[in-house]
Every structure is written in structure tokens, then in C-alpha cells.
């Protein structure tokens, strides 16, 4: 499954000039108890887990469990208390539809980094991921560890 990187306009931190920033993001469906919604999520090899803002859990009526462990530590040292839920995720791609259940951690909304992040546990562990910097594409091939519960491909 090949995905074009998404792009956002920003200002270069060095020159301040307008630039296009590429991000390895894909479309996923997050399933709640009654309904589901489609989101754009960052595939992040530096993240240990799947992280989403709590507003998604509220919007989809996903009941959350407060984490008993230590808070997550972000880049820069910021501590973030986590809650979690086991929910069904789905990768959206024209060639294949993969669905599985994963533990997703939720952080309080606000701050700079509250985007959806797909890290290793529950996501990258289930794929062979190739980041093509020249073509600005991400290729994801499911591996044998993917606990798929549906495949419409």
C-alpha cells in the first residue's frame, strides 16, 4: 500500500521563507461503539505507541480507562498523563482494507503536538514500512503479526 506524503505550508525556521513540509501521514478509520470517523494520522517511528487527542474519544463516545503507569514523556521532557482504550482501527487505501484492534493511548487536548500518531505498538509492529524520501511516499506492507479482523482487499 503506497501513500503520498501529506503536505503543509510553513515558514522555514532558518530563513523564515515559505516552504512546503512533507509528512508521512495516512488515512485511518477509528471505530467507536456506535459510529466511526476517518482521520489523517502521522506514521512516527519515534513513537512507542498509538497516541490520539482525547477529543476523538469524546466525539466517538469511546470510554477511556485511566492509565496507572507513569505519564508519557514527550520530546523536550514534557510529562503527559495517559488514558487508553482498545479500539478497532482500519487503514484506508484503494487496494486493501485492513482492520484490527489496537490499544490506543489518549492525551488531553491542547498544546502543540496533539495530532494523531501511529507508533510501534499496535501499528508499525504489524507492517514493513518503507519511507521513500525521494518520491515522498510511504509504503506499508502488512506482516504476519497483523491481527486482522477484516480484509476487503
Amino acid at each position: 500500500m503506497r501513500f503520498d506524503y501529506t503536505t503543509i505550508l510553513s515558514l522555514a525556521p532558518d530563513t523564515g521563507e515559505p516552504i512546503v513540509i512533507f509528512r508521512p501521514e495516512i488515512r485511518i478509520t477509528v471505530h467507536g461503539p456506535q459510529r466511526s470517523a476517518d482521520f489523517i494520522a502521522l506514521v512516527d517511528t519515534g513513537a512507542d505507541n498509538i497516541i490520539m487527542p482525547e477529543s476523538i474519544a469524546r466525539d466517538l463516545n469511546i470510554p477511556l480507562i485511566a492509565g496507572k503507569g507513569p505519564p508519557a514523556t514527550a520530546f523536550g521532557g514534557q510529562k503527559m498523563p495517559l488514558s487508553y482504550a482498545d479500539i478497532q482501527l482500519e487503514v484506508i487505501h484503494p487496494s486493501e482494507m485492513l482492520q484490527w484492534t489496537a490499544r490506543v493511548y489518549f492525551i488531553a487536548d491542547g498544546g502543540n503536538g496533539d495530532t494523531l500518531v501511529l507508533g510501534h505498538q499496535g501499528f508499525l509492529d504489524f507492517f514493513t514500512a518503507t519511507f521513500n524520501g525521494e518520491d515522498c511516499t510511504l509504503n506499508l506492507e502488512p506482516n504476519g503479526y497483523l491481527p486482522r479482523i477484516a480484509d476487503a482487499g
Partner: protein
Amino acid sequence: MQMTLQEYASRFPDRNRPVPREFAGQWLAWNQDCSEILSHGADLTTVREQAIALGCARPVLQKVPQAPFVGRA
């Protein structure tokens, strides 16, 4: 990867236009092929409902980071 908008338009003429800077930090609701922004704002549910009211039954939702993104700092 970073490049100017002119380079981007030249190298990737078939791809969608980048998300404009003014949406940084906001939720966006795209149409199904992510070619048009239907609604935007700070509240996810409001943004989704606005997109549905505009006729898109299943918008694609995106939280735009404050670029450049260097993690959850």
C-alpha cells in the same frame, strides 16, 4: 523533506495543494478525496458536524500541527 511551493508544484503537479499556514493548530474537515477543505476550527465535533451539514456524510478529519513539528513538546 522541505521545498518551496514552486518546487513542489513542479515536482508533484498531480498532488493536492499543501494545507495553508493559517490552519495550523486547527481541526480540518476534508471532502472524501482530500481535495477541498470543508470546515475548520478548534473543536473536532463542531468541525465534523459543519462538514456533514455541507453535504459530506463522511469527512476526513485532520489536526494540523504547528510546523515545524518536533514531537510533543
